[in-house]
């Protein structure tokens, strides 16, 4: 239990920075509710005065002031209730705003290694559902929990004040109800968790069905898919019914106990009134007070539940916020030389992916010098380490040993923003944001003019198809660039990289969806744009790599071959094999005779 307490303190201490700036609202929320509750408890006393001082003695003069007093109390109570609601609302909203901004900012700084593991849905739910849970608890739940406490304390104090024997008798109800309420919470809590699991199962099955609709239809597996969906759907139903069943068990019991206490009050209280131990007004006011105390007691289970859920939410959120950032800016960044030409050097670079300790090194003792104006080609199979090379250059990860330098400075000594503003990468899977094509191209340079954007698009061979779209550059490309073909998306991604005129450009297998003619046009443009700058090309096609100044062939993290196309093609090895597969029709360059000797030049 103690550890549980410690843990809770830690969580709310961790969240303190988000709600403490609004401690005024917090106080307003708690005090507003407490005062409203206290005033509410005075109301039954007025009824007592009405009966005992006005009706029974038949002194009807005081009635007007009594009634006005009642109305005044109601108005004041309502005002305080509003203070509670207003402050709680503001507190919760501002808290949510701060937490969401902080989480979002954190997401922006977390490294690639984090995103290799993270799941979108999980992060989304932390930034939405979890923040919502904390908002509710801190804004309202906390005040309500305190209020239940106040109500029981004040309420029984008043009952004892009116008639202590009756107070003592009804006090017996509290432990019974509290016990039932807590039992209720304990039973319902695990079911809530299973509901969340069922929902996520349901969501995944629907989502995959929609996104994979072509596969589903072509394999005619609608009924198989329905089976998967039905599992989630049935589970969701069953879990909701399980909740209802816990609810159906406890709610009526609690209400029965509470109501019985009122019946008992009438019986025993009635006897005491008849025997003149107390007045009729006492009885009516006790009846009113008991009703007021008992009503919120059965929600105790809910409040506790609300508390534990928000605690869990807080835990998940703090886990994200306190997450270690693998790749960080140095404490004292070195300013890179402004006219640095873009000389890149890899020295004895070895790297192992941080989350894959069991796997061998992705890159071993890698050396490379890429001078300004050079084009480096990287070739290799899946898992050969070729993408690793360029990701290390961007500092998506930090090298395990060795060093990478840019114009003589270790890239770990540079500010990340500085480093990355000098480099541009086009990823294998082109990602477009939900905005216009114009904004997608100018993503790295929001100050670019229309002319510059168009020029970049022309160089990436994208201008013509963009102009054919209904709204041209203002066409909005939706969710992951929907509505465009793979090749079109790649060309927009390439234009995006061209526009920032980086010192270092990286094409990570980013022309795979283009036909050779288009690719060739883009390569010509590339030479123009990247004059005097450094280019890294990762590709499977020989045609993409052929003109590189140096081609590095990688296998399982080791460099197995390096050199120019003309050299490599004459040496036995992976490069020549690849070449043969792709250009079996053109044997002459191999300097040996193959079975096929078709001439194609005409």
């Amino acid at each position: 239990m103690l550890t549980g307490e410690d843990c809770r303190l830690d969580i709310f201490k961790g969240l303190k920075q988000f709600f403490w700036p609004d401690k005024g609202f917090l106080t307003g929320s708690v005090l507003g509710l407490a005062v409203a509750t206290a005033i509410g408890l005075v109301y039954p006393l007025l009824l007592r005065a009405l009966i005992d001082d006005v009706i029974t003695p038949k002194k009807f003069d005081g009635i007007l002031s009594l009634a006005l007093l009642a109305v005044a109390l109601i108005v004041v109570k309502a005002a305080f209730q509003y203070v509670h609601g207003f402050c709680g609302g503001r507190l919760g909203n501002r808290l949510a705003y701060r937490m969401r901004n902080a989480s979002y900012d954190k997401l922006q700084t977390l490294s690639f290694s984090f995103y290799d593991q993270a799941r979108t849905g999980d992060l989304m739910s932390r930034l939405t559902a979890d923040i919502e849970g904390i908002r509710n608890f801190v804004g309202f739940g906390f005040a309500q929990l305190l209020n239940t406490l106040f109500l029981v304390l004040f309420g029984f104090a008043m009952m004892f004040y009116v008639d202590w024997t009756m107070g003592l008798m009804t006090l017996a109800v509290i432990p019974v109800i509290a016990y039932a309420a807590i039992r209720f919470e304990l039973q319902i809590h695990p079911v809530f968790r299973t509901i969340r699991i069922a929902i996520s199962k349901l969501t995944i099955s629907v989502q995959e069905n929609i996104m994979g609709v072509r596969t589903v239809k072509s394999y005619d597996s609608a009924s198989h898919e329905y089976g998967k969906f039905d599992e989630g759907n049935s589970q969701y139903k069953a879990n909701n019914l399980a909740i209802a069943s816990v609810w159906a068990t406890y709610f009526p019991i609690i209400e029965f106990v509470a109501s019985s206490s009122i019946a008992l009050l009438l019986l025993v209280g009635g006897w005491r009134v008849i025997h003149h131990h107390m007045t009729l007004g006492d009885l009516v006011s006790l009846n009113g007070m008991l009703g007021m105390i008992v009503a919120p007691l059965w929600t105790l289970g809910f409040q506790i539940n609300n508390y534990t859920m928000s605690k869990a939410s807080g835990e998940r959120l703090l886990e994200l916020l306190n997450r270690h950032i693998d790749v960080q800016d140095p404490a004292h960044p070195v300013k890179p030389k402004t006219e640095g030409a873009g000389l890149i050097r890899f020295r004895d670079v070895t790297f192992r992916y941080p989350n894959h300790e069991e796997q061998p090194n992705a890159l071993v003792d890698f050396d490379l010098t890429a001078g300004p104006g050079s084009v480096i080609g990287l070739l290799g199979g899946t898992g050969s380490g070729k993408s690793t090379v360029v990701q290390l250059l961007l500092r998506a990860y930090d090298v395990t040993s060795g060093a990478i330098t840019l114009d003589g400075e270790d890239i770990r000594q540079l500010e990340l923003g500085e480093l990355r503003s000098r480099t541009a990468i086009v990823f294998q899977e082109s990602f477009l944001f939900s905005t216009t094509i114009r904004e997608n191209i100018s993503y790295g340079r929001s100050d670019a003019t229309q002319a510059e954007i168009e020029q970049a698009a022309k160089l990436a061979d994208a201008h013509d198809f963009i102009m054919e779209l209904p709204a041209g550059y203002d066409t909005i490309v939706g969710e992951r660039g929907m509505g465009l073909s793979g090749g079109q998306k790649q060309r927009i991604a390439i234009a995006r990289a061209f526009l920032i005129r980086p010192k270092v450009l990286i094409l990570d297998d980013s022309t795979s969806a283009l036909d050779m003619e288009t690719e060739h046009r883009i390569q010509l443009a590339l030479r123009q744009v990247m004059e005097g700058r450094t280019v890294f090309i990762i590709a499977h096609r020989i045609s993409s790599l052929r003109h590189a100044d140096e081609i590095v062939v990688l296998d399982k993290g080791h460099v197995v071959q390096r050199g120019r196309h003309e050299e490599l093609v004459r040496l036995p090895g992976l490069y020549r094999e690849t070449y043969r597969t792709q250009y079996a029709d053109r044997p002459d360059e191999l300097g040996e005779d193959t079975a096929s000797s078709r001439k194609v030049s005409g």
Partner: protein
Amino acid sequence: MSRQFQYQDDVLIEKSFNWKQMARLFDYLKPYKGAVTRVVFVMMVFGMLTRLAIPYLISLAIDKVIDPDGGNGSMGYLSIVFGVMLAMYGLRWWAQNYTIHHTNDIGQKVIYDLRSALFKHVQTLSFRFFDKRPAGSVLVRITNDVNSLQDLLSNGVVNSAIDIAQLAGIIVILLVLQPKLALAVMITVPLLIFVSSSLRKRTRMAWQTVRIKQSRINSHLNEAIQGMRVTQAFAQEKENMRFFDNLNGSSIRSWNIASSLNQLFGPVIEVTSAVGTLILLLYGTHLIQQGELTVGVLVAFITYVSNFWEPINRLGQMYSQLLISMSSAERIFEYMDEKPIVAEKEDAKPLNDVRGRVQFDHVVFGYDPDRLALKDISFDIKPGMTVALVGHTGSGKSTIVNLLCRFYDVTSGRVLIDGMDVRDATLDSLRRQIGIVMQDTFIFSGTIRDNIRYGRPDASNAEVEAAARSVRAHDFIVKLPDGYDTQVQERGSALSMGQRQLLSFARALLADPRILIMDEATASIDTETEVRIQEALGTLLEHRTSFIVAHRLSTIRHADLILVLDHGVIVDQGNHDELMRRPGHYRNLIEAQYRFLSA
């Protein structure tokens, strides 16, 4: 200029609701009519009546026994009242248990039915439907929109019936107990209804704004997380933070408005009903003075009147809930009303044991009516032939594939398999004959094994492995942490594109279709893997009619027939040798490749 991502919003609904939609929604309750009636009956008799009777019993006890002014002080009578009260509470216990069980049971079943119906319907819809909509918005309708009807359909219906009955009951009792006082107190009812409904309308609009802003945040978060690598590579973190701060700030402002209005509600109702209390106290004591009212009845009145606001308040909330639910219902029915464009004919026949002859007979097709993707395409493919489709992006290669699978229907002309028009065949039998390996391989969450087995769920483990071996996928699979039982998530993002494609090859091979289509399937495979694939391709293509859409010469040169497409027209056809012998599109294309190589 600061960045502006754009997301589609739902529209603010101002109108009152559509009765027809509501009737349609309540049709889903029809199968459970009996259960609904029983629940309402039980709750009315045992739940509501006890609630109405108890204040009256208390007033009897006060007036007849306890009141020092006129009570007889009989403990026997008081004990009877106590006993009756306890018995009523007992009945109420049972009635509540029954009601909670059954309302939820009905509600959950209706939700289940509705969601199943919607899902099944959406599954029948054609590609045109999915082309137009982002996956997220379809998802939201099947999950959130259906969920939001849950409360309405379970507790909503039953509680509203009970609330209306309770209101009527209280009014009758008050009128019977003391008509003058009852009428005086009820003067405040119209005032209350007016105040609450005008406040509620504004609150409702405010919450809608909150929801719209929230869904914008959700869309952005989803995209920001998925595109994070691009953001970081282009050093755009600060810009994104600025954009999000705006989004978040505007969301919080709408929250502030909505929650201020929402919190106003309780206090305003309370102050309004204070007018009723004032009348009750002043006029009530006046009537006691006149001897027209007893203390017990006054106490009962106070209880009844406080029970009075409760159902009015709940019914008001119910009405707001109904309006919000109706907008969900409308969105659901909009999908239900979508007709599948590619629909099975009434008299469709199964297409069994085909040999694999494929004919296109003067096929014309356009995705948009004014832009034709295919113009008068005709060809005749004999069983077992390998056909390569060659041409630039947008030449119509993929469209031919889409029409063959009947993902779309031709605008005019016919597509025939073994002489049968694909529109005359049942969809499932047609698609069982065709296997397709796509550019964008879709991996489902589940194990690697399940993914390979996708087209033939009854395949044995040995068959799965044999298929994986044939396409050279076995080697990388056994290196994964759990081999064939490795769980893949989020569309297989942990696998490389090449690996994903190998899996889809294995999937296609295992399904063993008569007609196989490979749509740019080898574009992203590294050459090492491709060499293996080339070897496997022989196995894959054997004894099947196959269509290959590819840019790479190495994949197309062995085809029996090459169809060269340009702007929706077949400009040339023949095998590689024939086509190379004469000048034309194909030779230009191939020569261009070499030119690039040596340029």
